[in-house]
């Protein structure tokens, strides 16, 4: 193996690019689950965000408008989920699956004319002086704005959940919706807001794939990342900074296997491509094994429908 082919700085930059979409999707889902709702449609919302971001960027020429479109598209799909589960009280597991199946189909349909077109370059923030520093420059100061936004999002959600009154209410709704309802909080409205937020985050995460990471549109390009984001939330025990860390670990696994493939390790590439999925299973098993801890961390009303009787 020729290890000199590996450039540590380039690998770190690739890692950040691989992790950022997972950060968006996982943080969004974390807020949804904290409110007591399990939305399994992350994969569907991500892929719709990916094509919405890509298509609108092509049509408008502006990546910012594209990202905004992805945000709206993700939230719109989440709105459908919110209507189904909060108003019609449908089964959350089945509805989430429906959202994923529907989203994958919808994205493939919209995306047909956009396959194989390169996306316009995504602007990188560069800070004169700092960005030109060796090693530290490319590592810390020369990313696109979404990387910094993902950091701000994680910090913001942490602050919201743990330090703000709104976060306290959100957690109360997730822990005991009957009690929250009895004190006068509007459970359905709060949950709907959380679901929309989660959808918007997943949409942006998807657009990051098609506009920055790839950057082009390929059918089914999320390749299970929405599901991995769901696993990250469990891994993180519903704590934002641990979800951030989890996203970087999973990003790291996918970058590691890509680099091994590039080094020409004597295994068929498919076996290396399996690693992120297998690692997800292994991590889930390790985290869930301690039943008492898993139950303590999970929001008590997760996945349970709420019906205000009377």
């Amino acid at each position, binding site marked *: 193996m020729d290890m000199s082919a590996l450039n540590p700085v380039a690998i770190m930059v690739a890692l950040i690019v691989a992790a950022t979409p997972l950060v968006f999707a996982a943080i969004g889902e974390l807020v949804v689950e904290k409110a007591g709702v399990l939305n*399994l449609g992350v994969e569907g919302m991500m892929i719709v965000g990916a094509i919405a971001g890509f298509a609108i960027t092509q049509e408008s020429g502006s990546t910012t408008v594209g990202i905004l479109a992805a945000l709206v598209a993700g939230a719109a799909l989440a709105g*459908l989920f919110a209507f*189904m589960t909060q108003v*019609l*009280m*449908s*089964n959350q*597991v*089945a*509805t989430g*699956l*429906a959202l994923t*199946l*529907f*989203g*994958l*189909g*919808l*994205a*493939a*349909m919209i995306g*047909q004319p956009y396959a194989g077109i390169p996306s316009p370059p995504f602007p990188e923030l560069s800070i004169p002086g700092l960005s030109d520093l060796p090693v530290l420059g490319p590592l810390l100061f020369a990313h696109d704005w979404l990387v910094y936004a993902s950091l701000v999002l994680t910090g913001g959600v942490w602050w919201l959940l743990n330090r703000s009154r709104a976060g306290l209410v959100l957690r109360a709704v997730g822990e005991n919706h009957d009690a929250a309802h009895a004190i006068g909080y509007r459970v359905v409205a709060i949950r709907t807001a959380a679901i929309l937020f989660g959808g918007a985050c997943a949409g942006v995460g998807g657009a990051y794939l098609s506009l920055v990471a790839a950057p082009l549109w390929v*059918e089914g390009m999320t*390749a*299970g990342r929405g*599901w991995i984001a*769901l*696993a990250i939330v*469990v891994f993180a025990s519903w704590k934002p900074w641990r979800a951030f860390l989890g996203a970087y670990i999973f990003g790291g696994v996918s970058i590691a296997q890509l680099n091994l493939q590039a080094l020409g390790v004597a295994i*068929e590439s*498919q*076996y290396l*491509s*399996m690693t992120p*999925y*297998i690692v*997800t*299973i292994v991590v*889930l*098993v*390790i985290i*869930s*094994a301690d*039943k008492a801890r*898993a139950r303590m961390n999970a929001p008590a009303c997760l996945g349970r429908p709420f*019906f205000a*009787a009377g």
Partner: protein
Amino acid sequence: MLRLEKRKERSRVMTWAGPLLAVALTMVFGMILFAALGKDPVRTIAIIFWDPLTNDFSRSELLVKGTPLCLIAVGLALGFRAGVWNIGAEGQFIVGAIAGGAAGLAVYDTAGVWVLPMMCLAGAAAGAAWALIPAILRIRFNANEILVSLMLVYVAGLWLSALVTGPLRDPDGFNFPESRIFHDSATLPILLEGTRAHVGALAALAAVVIGWLALERHEYGFSLKLFGQAPRAARFAGYREARVVLLSMGVSGGLAGLAGTFEAAGPVGQLVPALPVGYGFTAIIVAFLGRLHPGGILLASALMALTYIGGEGAQLEMRLPAAAISVFQGMLLFFLLGMDVFSRYRLAPSKALAARRAQGGAA
């Protein structure tokens, strides 16, 4: 204004009218979708739902596509009733195709009536084993079976692709990623002369009957329902959760694996990376559309097969994008889940409205 009021028990009428209404709503919204795509909506709906019924070949294709859907969905219904969510049937289908196919290729060019049963056994066993991974991880380590079974779909897909570019590749295939074409003894007998409808359809029918007996006429079905609706009561009644999880996952995986073997040894005739076409996911819709009832699933798989075949027709004739049919199927599941609310709740006038009416009546 209207509000929802909880029914004392599920409405039987709405339980069965719901799926029909959902299909009707899907047709209406499908027509809107097709019109938005610039296609003649009425003609497109006719191509999807009517044209396949008008000629012998597409009627036989209903059996080809309905067989895997029905086999998988009957298995999924067991688990779904008990709150065991096997979402990875697609992976179990792929592994079944791999194992069944590999068993056939291992005895390549050997004639014998035992070849096909051996392949089916291998496929079903492999599918069951693949499904038991999430089952055991759930029982032993409390790991979420939805995520684990889904991750294993990707692993299975990559494994199939690795095998047909590696050990199972056709030695005379000019390096194309595909296996040899199965020899005659390893190919499913055709049911109707001149079509692709194979004997697997009979196995699907048998699964429906056995599934009905197990669910509606056997204690096993009762234990599943009890676990789904009142897990604590089920435990008090002495049913063991581990048994329910293992059995429902194992059986559904086995049926999905069998469907995979049928697909490889039937219409496809070899192992190729493109063998899985999403039957495992569509079967989830079929299971719900059929109300998790084997008889309902039989009808639902016929309807879903119809949209597949009609969808292919619409692709050719109306130049409809292939994915439009997945959108269509996804919509169906949405409407179905939405309709479900009316079997558990009824629409009633809101309190303010009821009060005003009562006042009006008194005056």
